[in-house]
């Protein structure tokens, strides 16, 4: 039986991992992720979850343990935040390159220096090119559902998946959600399978040094070079979008929730102005949109649910004919612009009637994102008839600066 309960986002994630029957958990404490792995260690110690908990000495080792376990044929899980994610960066690339179907929760937090324990998206954005699928949850229900779907996606396409959710806004916040029934989850999520499981009876040497060029194997069959392997990762990561939609459809049939695996629009149908954001920030815009709609402005908000692979065509189709797209994000590529903004701009470039684009940087290192500020900046952007120079239009606006 599914169960309705109220709990923290970290506990929601832990319960999803328990339902997914991950068998090896390795993690290193870091705020605000810590309670998630505390919960898993507690579930395992209490015998409520049948798994190995490995208390490792670093995040680098945490993902190392998962790489070992997953390569040896067992479903593994880890979680981290911020500098912990950066510390395991090398392992992220490694897991993707060896096509390990891992799932990791990243409880998003700003990166030091200076130290900040508060939320933004810079940690995840810094790893966008690692070859991991990156999805962003907006509430506890999505944490649970996305985590379960992430395991299935990872294991179908053999690409690791990072489930992102906002530190504190979700991790430490209590809100209601529904926990699916264990038996139905078992039916939804088949048993773990890795294409190259380490096995003394079928020995293979995994992740061997690979030459720039294709090379014949001992049977004279041509095998890929490094670039071919990486091209395949890219191609299949693009193809994973489709699989993600299929998984969502199946999930919806079984659990009654879903339908917005890639884009989650709110009042976007006839909108002239569309806000694009990820995570809780997108939800925070609901009230703002309602208010501006009441004032007669045709505004909507589009939550981007999956950031890598970037749903280039899907989002461009959705936005190509609106007047303006306003990208609000909690991170940026320093010295340039918001990473999401730049991605969106490039996705829309081939379309002749592409909309105006504006970029807003908010909430870095946990800076309060006032709903009133969102309302004011959005309203101003919508009413702004006289446009500035291309460079001015393209320059990100920082909201909430205090100096």
């Amino acid at each position, binding site marked *: 039986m599914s169960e309705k309960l109220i709990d923290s986002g970290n506990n929601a994630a832990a319960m999803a991992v328990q339902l997914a029957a991950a068998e090896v958990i390795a993690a290193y404490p870091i705020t605000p992720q810590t309670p998630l792995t505390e919960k898993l260690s507690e579930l395992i110690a209490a015998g409520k979850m049948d798994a190995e908990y490995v208390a490792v000495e670093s995040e680098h080792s945490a993902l190392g343990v998962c790489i070992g376990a997953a390569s040896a044929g067992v479903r593994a899980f880890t979680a981290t935040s911020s500098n912990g994610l950066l510390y395991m960066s090398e392992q992220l690339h490694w897991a993707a390159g060896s096509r390990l179907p891992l799932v990791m929760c990243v409880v998003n937090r700003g990166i030091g220096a200076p130290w900040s324990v508060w939320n933004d998206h810079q940690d995840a954005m810094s790893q966008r090119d690692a070859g991991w699928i990156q999805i962003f949850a907006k509430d506890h229900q999505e944490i649970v559902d996305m985590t379960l779907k992430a395991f299935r996606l990872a294991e179908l396409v053999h690409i690791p998946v990072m489930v992102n959710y906002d530190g504190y806004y979700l991790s430490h916040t*209590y809100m209601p959600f529904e926990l699916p029934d264990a038996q139905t989850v078992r039916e939804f999520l088949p048993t773990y399978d890795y294409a190259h499981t380490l096995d003394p009876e079928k020995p293979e040497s995994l992740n061997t040094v690979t030459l720039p060029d294709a090379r014949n194997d001992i049977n004279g069959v041509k095998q890929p070079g490094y670039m071919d392997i990486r091209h395949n990762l890219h191609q299949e990561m693009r193809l994973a979008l489709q699989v993600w939609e299929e998984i969502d459809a199946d999930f919806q049939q079984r659990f009654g929730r879903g339908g917005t695996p890639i884009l989650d629009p709110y009042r976007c149908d006839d909108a002239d102005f569309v806000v694009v954001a990820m995570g809780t920030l997108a939800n925070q815009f609901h009230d703002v949109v309602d208010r501006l709609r009441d004032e007669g402005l045709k505004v909507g908000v589009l939550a981007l649910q999956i950031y890598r692979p970037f749903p280039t065509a899907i989002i461009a189709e959705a936005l190509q004919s609106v007047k303006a797209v306003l990208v609000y994000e909690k991170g940026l590529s320093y010295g340039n612009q918001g990473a999401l903004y730049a991605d969106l701009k490039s996705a829309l470039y081939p379309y002749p009637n592409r909309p105006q684009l504006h970029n807003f940087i908010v909430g870095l290192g946990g800076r309060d994102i006032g709903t009133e500020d969102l309302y004011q900046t959005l309203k101003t952007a919508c009413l702004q008839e006289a446009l500035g120079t291309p460079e001015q239009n393209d320059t990100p606006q920082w909201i909430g600066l205090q100096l």
Partner: protein
Amino acid sequence: MQDDPQQMIQIRWHGRGGQGAITAAKVVAEATFKSGYGGVVMAPTFGTERRGAPVSTSLKISREKIYDLSPIRFPDIVVVLDYLILNEVDVTVGLKPGGLLIINSPRPLRDHQFPDYRVAVANVTKLGIEAGLRKGIVNSGIIGALGKAGGLVDIEMLSRCIAAEFVGRKPEENVRAAQLVYAATQISEPSRGAANA
């Protein structure tokens, strides 16, 4: 206020690190959720919590799903787990006129003059000891004051949720503390006659 589905009730809790303000807010969140509120969001102070330092926690309650998780700026109710915090923190910041201020204090109600607000006072610390708790355990007791003055959830539901939260940690004594406080809480109406929040 419960009849309007759009209405959100926002409660801000002030305590000290280690006093259990988060646990108290969690219990109330659970109780309101179980009483049929579909939107309940309890967000603790974000960041580095340290024992003894003032902390605050926010609880938003609504019939509908809550999308805005930003911190509470204009609370309807403020709960203070230790009256000494009144000297350190302006707990009434943003509190709507006519809003409710609940204080754990050994002093009588008349010593806590807030003309714009309804004020509820109980000696939660003392009643907790009477209920059989260790000195300084106030988080279960203060829920009784909120139950009495807030009118959101009945004391039976609150008691059930307290018992569930404190499993293995003197659940009966904690429930008794809440019930003693419920009975002892004294309430004064705003003297400046502001509208009810």
